[in-house]
């Protein structure tokens, strides 16, 4: 094929296939409509997706950070529900006729944070958490209880301190009657000697008449009396508990009284 003929073919092709044959306006309309739609879709996705992603990230960060838990502890402490935690009190053995041992949160009334010596954290085990009826206490009781504690460095700003400070405060949030209560608790559930346990409960109640664990001590004392066969005394202790509208061991006290009759 000659060069001239090839050039003519190229020219003919160029003329027969002009770009102007396409409907440029229609294409423009379609392109812009689709582009606008995509942009709106992307913006909508951003409006929804960003808050969701941000919420998720913040949640994960808070959950992962120690600070988040510290803050939670502070709030709980302020609410008076502190120290229901993780100490290793042995699980009480169940026995027919004897109530399941339980150790309640020690302080339902918000108690001010108290500075404590480091190292006490591991020495004083905390009772396992169990719901407990709040014990109505008079203002005098509270005052007496507060006076019985050594409370150096008590101030309102202390709970807002860092986590390390909050951990140091933990043992001091436990009332001092805890050690006495634990001794009685051990004798009651693990000692196998009701008389010794009864003595320990009596000692606790005598030492801390407005103590944190008075309701539990009273109920357990009644159980010890029952074990020792002193039914009348046990009944005298159990009846007020069973008749109370909201007291620790009320249902079990009623059950025991029912069984006694």
């Amino acid at each position, binding site marked *: *094929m000659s060069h001239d*003929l*090839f050039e*003519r*073919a*190229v020219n*003919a*092709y*160029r*003329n*027969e*296939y*002009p*770009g*102007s*044959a*396409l*409907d*440029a306006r*229609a*294409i*423009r309309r*379609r*392109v*812009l409509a*689709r*582009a*606008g739609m*995509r*942009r709106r879709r*992307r913006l909508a996705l951003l409006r929804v997706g960003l808050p969701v992603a941000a919420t998720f990230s913040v949640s994960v960060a808070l959950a992962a950070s120690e600070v988040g838990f510290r803050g939670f502890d502070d709030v709980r402490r302020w609410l008076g529900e502190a120290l229901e935690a993780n100490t290793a009190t042995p699980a009480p053995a169940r026995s027919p006729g004897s109530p399941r041992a339980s150790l309640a949160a020690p302080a339902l009334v918000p108690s001010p944070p108290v500075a404590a010596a480091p190292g006490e954290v591991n020495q004083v085990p905390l009772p396992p958490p169990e719901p407990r009826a709040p014990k109505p206490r008079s203002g005098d009781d509270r005052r007496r209880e507060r006076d019985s504690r050594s409370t150096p460095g008590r101030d309102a700003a202390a709970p807002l301190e860092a986590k390390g400070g909050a951990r140091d405060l933990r043992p001091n949030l436990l009332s001092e009657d805890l050690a006495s209560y634990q001794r009685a608790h051990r004798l009651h559930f693990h000692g196998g000697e009701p008389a010794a346990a009864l003595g320990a409960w009596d000692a606790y109640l005598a030492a801390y008449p407005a103590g944190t664990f008075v309701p539990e001590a009273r109920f357990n004392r009644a159980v010890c009396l029952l074990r020792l066969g002193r039914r009348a005394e046990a009944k005298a202790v159990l009846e007020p508990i069973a008749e109370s509208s909201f007291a620790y061991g009320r249902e079990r006290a009623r059950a025991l009284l029912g069984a006694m009759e």
Partner: protein
Amino acid sequence: LHSLALPKIGALEEEFLERVRSGDPEAVATVYDRHHQALCSFAKRLLGDDHAAEDLVQDVFLVLPSLAHRLDPGASLRSFLLGIAANRARHYRRSWRRRLKFVERLGRESAPPCENPERASERKALASALARALDAIPFDHRVTFVLREIEGYSSREVALSLKIPEATVRTRVFHAKEKLRALLGGEDVR
């Protein structure tokens, strides 16, 4: 022959490019108004079929925002668009079959009454023969030939569009011409 004029390669403002990347319809419209003729012409001459060519042009401008991150400020936007079109035209091979039918129909159509019937007939026959020949050569040769010889872009711009060396452009054009001449020589185009 506006298509033979060397196209101007304008530098893009980064801000404008950012708007294109974000899919701003106004920015896309600006790009379309500036470059749609080049794209329409190339698409039509590469594919032959009007519908396929329109789809290709539309496709190019729709994917532009998502591909614009590859475009540097100061680069040729037209070359970039032509490169997108050349790549995406591979997906429009099916339309070439329609194009063959179109070419055959074109050959049967009578020339406009104001034109010399003989010349018009000869032109149509030549165009049809070249279209068939273009269908017979490899796609890369075909794209390079259409851009360089039919659209009239420089070897440099074709190289920029297809992201190949200029020497490769020249080699492809040379081989395309050889094959097309051989194919056209075997046809009775007159």
